[in-house]
Every structure is written in C-alpha cells, then in structure tokens.
C-alpha cells in the first residue's frame, strides 16, 4: 500500500522547489516566511485530508468548498448569536459532517456517481450558506475564538499545530484501523471488498462524512483567520484539494496513495504560490505555472508507476 520511493519523489520535488526559490529570492528561506507558508497551506491541507480519503476510495468530492462556506457561516452565526464556542463548534462540525454523510449515502445507497452527487451538494451547500446569511458575511468575533488562527505556540502559528494534529489523527485512522484498511480496499476493488463481507455502503458513507468533517475543520480556521464567515468563501477549494492529493501521488483510480504525500502536495502548492508572490510574478503567469506543476507532477508520477509495474 505504501510505496516510500514515490512519496520520496514528491518530497524531493518540494525540496527542489525550495532550493530554486532560495536561489531566486532572498526572502524565501527565512524562518518567518517558512512559517508564513505553513500557515497559509493549513486550510488547503486539511480539506485535502478529506479529499484523500474520498479519492483513495475511488470517489471524488466537489462539494468541499461549499461545505467550508456552510459550516463557516453556521459557526459564525452561532457565535454572533451569543453561543459559546463549546456550542458553536460542534454545530458547525455537525453541519459539515451531515453534508458529507448525505453525499456518502447518495453515492452508496443511491448508487449515483460521486461526481454528480457532490456537484449537486456543491450547489446546495453554497445556496444554503447564502440563504442562511442573506448573502452577507458574518464578521467580528471574540479574540478567544480567533486565537485558533492568530495564536502562536512558541513561534509556531496555531493553524500549523492544528494541521499537524489533524494529519496525525487521520494518518492513524488510515494506517492503523480497519476503517482505514477498508478505504484502500474499496478503492482497490469495491466488488471484492463487498464479497468479503465488508459493508461497503456503510464505509463509503463514512468516508464522505470524513471529507465533510475536514471541510468543517478548515472552515473553523478560515473563519478565525479572516475574522469573518463568508457565504462565498471556499470557492475552487475542491480544485486545490484535488491538486494537493494528486500531486501527493494518490491515484485518481483509488486504492493507492498516502496522507503524507498529500501533505507534501499541499505544501508544494503553498510554496509555489508564496514563491511566485515573493518573486513578483504576474498573477496571470502564476496560474499558468501552478497548472503546469500539477500536470507535470502527475505525469512524473504516472511514468514512475508504469516503470514500477514492468
């Protein structure tokens, strides 16, 4: 399941990128900038955890960005209504989880293609977020909540620590629990998994639930970071999360990939955006470069995989 050599390739890619930027600009390789990149990457990295679960199982989740927006406004409005974080946080996580579980149920019990189901949810969750807030952002929160994004432990920004904890937990689930094994098994061969007595439907539903939950966690950090919950937040997050996952070596066919790869993939995206900003590269050119890196990374991965097989 775990192919260290390939993950290593992605890591070498990240390091090479860092070295190139270090040569090109004096502002890149500084402690403050590297922490800055890590902080900026955290939201995409967390959304990409859920995406990795879904893609490993052979699915896709296009609704993550809209779920970020919906759980964000649930969190924001409950906080503004005077509820404590102890109430608002579970509410917002529940909103994300429910959206995910609904996706999963429609995919497994409804037998619909994940692309279609999550495309629908993408629109429904976005519309719900807009309806809920009448299109207006919900802004202004207590510093005790904002510390989740603005706080620091020592010199490390809080979102970096939160991301690390999410990855540790998700890695444990994926690598050391039966649920994790089934994620790979379903993606590898769904029919065989079903025939061996595993409730594929139940586990698939849970997998999409994980994705919804991760989007909600990302929404917590995003809301704290911007001091605002926006119904239009998280647009195109699905594409960033898919990019991080596939750059990290997870196969879109399912059954093959790792979370550490996804983390490196998310960091590659973050470092690239940061580096191009530092270099003052035109925003239009930036989009071209990022797109090219996604394609090249997956191309290298595919070529290596083919070699490994023969």
């Amino acid at each position, binding site marked *: 399941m775990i192919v260290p050599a390939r993950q290593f390739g992605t890591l070498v890619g990240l390091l090479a990128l860092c070295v190139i930027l270090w040569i090109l600009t004096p502002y890149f390789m500084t402690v403050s900038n590297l922490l800055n990149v890590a902080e900026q990457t955290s939201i995409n990295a967390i959304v990409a955890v859920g995406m990795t679960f879904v893609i490993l199982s052979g699915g896709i989740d296009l609704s993550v960005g809209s779920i970020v927006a919906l759980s964000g406004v649930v969190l924001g409005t409950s906080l503004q209504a005077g509820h404590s974080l102890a109430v608002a946080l579970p509410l917002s996580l529940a909103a994300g989880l429910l959206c995910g579980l609904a996706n999963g149920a429609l995919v497994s019990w409804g037998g619909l293609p994940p692309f279609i189901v999550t495309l629908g949810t993408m629109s429904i969750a976005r519309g719900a977020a807009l309806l809920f807030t009448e299109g207006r952002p919900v802004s202004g929160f207590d510093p005790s909540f904002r510390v989740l994004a*603005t706080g620091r432990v020592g010199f490390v920004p809080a979102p970096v620590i939160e991301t690390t904890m999410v990855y540790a937990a998700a890695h444990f689930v994926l690598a050391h629990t039966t649920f994790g094994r089934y994620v790979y098994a379903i993606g590898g061969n769904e029919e065989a998994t079903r025939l061996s007595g595993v409730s594929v439907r139940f586990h698939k539903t849970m997998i999409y639930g994980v994705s919804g939950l991760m989007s909600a966690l990302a929404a917590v950090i995003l809301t704290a970071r911007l001091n*605002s919950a926006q119904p239009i937040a998280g647009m195109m997050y699905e594409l960033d999360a898919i990019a991080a996952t596939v750059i990290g070596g997870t196969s879109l066919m399912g059954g093959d990939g790792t979370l550490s790869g996804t983390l490196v993939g998310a960091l590659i995206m973050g470092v690239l955006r940061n580096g191009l900003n*530092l270099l003052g590269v035109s925003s239009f050119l930036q989009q071209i470069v990022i797109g090219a890196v996604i394609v090249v990374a997956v191309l290298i991965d595919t070529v290596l995989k083919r070699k490994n097989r023969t």
Partner: protein
Amino acid sequence: MKRTIALALTAAALSASCNRGATTGNAGTSKPTVALVLKTLNHPFFVDMRRGAQEAADRLGVTLQVQAAEREIDVEKQMQIVENMIQTGIQALCITPSGSREIVSALVKAKDAKVPIIVVDTRVDAKAAADAGVRTETFVGSDNYEGGKLAGEYLIKVTGGNARVGILEGIPGHETGDSRMHGFRDAVKGSPGITIVASQPANWERDQGFNVFQNMLQAHQDIDSVFACSDLMALGAIEAIAAAGKTGRIRVIGFDALDDAKKAIAAGTMEASVAQFPSEMGRVAVESAVKVIRGETVPPDIKVKLELVTKDNVK
C-alpha cells in the same frame, strides 16, 4: 543515495534559513518598494489603476510590486498575498480590499510589520479596523454614494420623474456596491413617480448581469430603466435587452465608464455611466505612499473626481 541527496538539501536549506534571516532588514538603501495589492487584474478598472500607479512609480523612482487574487471575491488569497509581500520587506502597502471587514486581519499583519497602509477604492470597515488597532494612512477613492446619487438624479432628469427601475447590485455586503445602490435609492426616493420594481445582486459580473436582468424582465415586463452598480453588469443587461428585442426602449445607467460602456453610450444602447478615474486613484495612491515613506503627512481622505458620461460628452 536519494536519501543522502535529500538530507544534504535539507541541511543546506536549514543552514540557509539561519544565514538569510539576518539580511532581510537592509531595505531602504536601494529604491523603496511599494506594493499595490488589487482585488483582481481581470477587470479593466484595476488594469487602469495599475497603469496610473506604474506611471507614478516610474516618475518617482520607486519599485512597484503589483499582485492580485485570481478572483475578485477571494479575501483569503488577498490576505496570503499581503502576508507574502510583507516578507519581501515592502515599505508601503496600497490595497483595494476584497472585503471591507475581512481584510482587517491582513492589515493587522502589515501593522505588526510597521508597513504603512494606503487604502484605495474600497473603504476598510472603520469599526473593525479600530477594534484591531489598525491605522490606515489615507483612503484614496471616489465617493461611491455620491456616484450613485449622480446616476439617480440623472434618471429623474431624463425621465421627468417617471420610471420603473430594476437595480443590479454588486456582491451583497461589499461597501462599494452598497454605497452606489444607496446613493441611487436616496436620490430617487423623493420622486413618487419612480418605482424600484426589482433589485437583485449580479455579483459584478457580465454574464450574471445578463441572466439576472433577463429574469427581471420575465417577472416585470414594464421595467423601463436599469441602474447597474457596475458597467460589466450593465453591459450584461444590455445584451439581455437585445435578446428580448427591447433595445432602445429601456434606459441603462451603469457605473465605471468602461471602454465598452462608452462605446455602448455612443451607439445609443446605453444611456449613461458614472465615470471614475481608476488610473488617477493608482497615481494618487503611489504618490501618497511615497510621501508617507518620506515621513510627510497625507490627508486622511483623498477624493478622486466623478463624472457622468452621456451621449453628449462621450469620447
């Protein structure tokens, strides 16, 4: 083998991070750098603003770094850009906020890095900024409320105070669009013959302007005037009017006086547009930034003129 290379790279990277950390503070000896962070660069308004800013920067001998998010509403990306620009040791930040309140978190980072802030075009929410202890040097922009009022007064004049109006709003909750709309509404409030039959957001976009106005026409056959809070939405509405075969029978008033809008005004498919002068905003923003860097004071509010473009004065 691969592992060794990677370890070497990591070691090199780590040692570098220690070396380089100390050398970033030497700005000021060379040309000062001013950052201009725009909402987006895929809108002619901001392209013009960049042109004005660049001309001023060249003239004053400062380096101008222009960056923008891919999409106008992406506050988080704009915040990342601000964070990244701060890392490059900029001496002043000119910014057109994608969100009046949301951007404050990014401005706090600029404040902490002691980078002076010049706000352009869209105001920062005063209360949110005060709560966060953010002080901006100046605001450079047109008064959008006055612009909306200008459009409303013009509509009263040309219709003799009788019209059924549809309004295309900007993104809800954004200061620029809200001010324009309120200016317009306040101007026509005193005319009992003017009824606002529909008011819907079309999020600044041309295609949404088309769709939203098409829907409005479906619901209200008798609409005879449109006020769009931006020309892109107005241009979309003009297409929708053409598709409905009503060209020339519905007055369209827009905002921004984009080139395409001026052409439409000259061609008679559009009634008027409130002109802002984005290149002027860019110029004044950079000039103010340079003044602040030199330790000079700038007024807290710099108004850039507004003008109504109609078929009588369109160029």
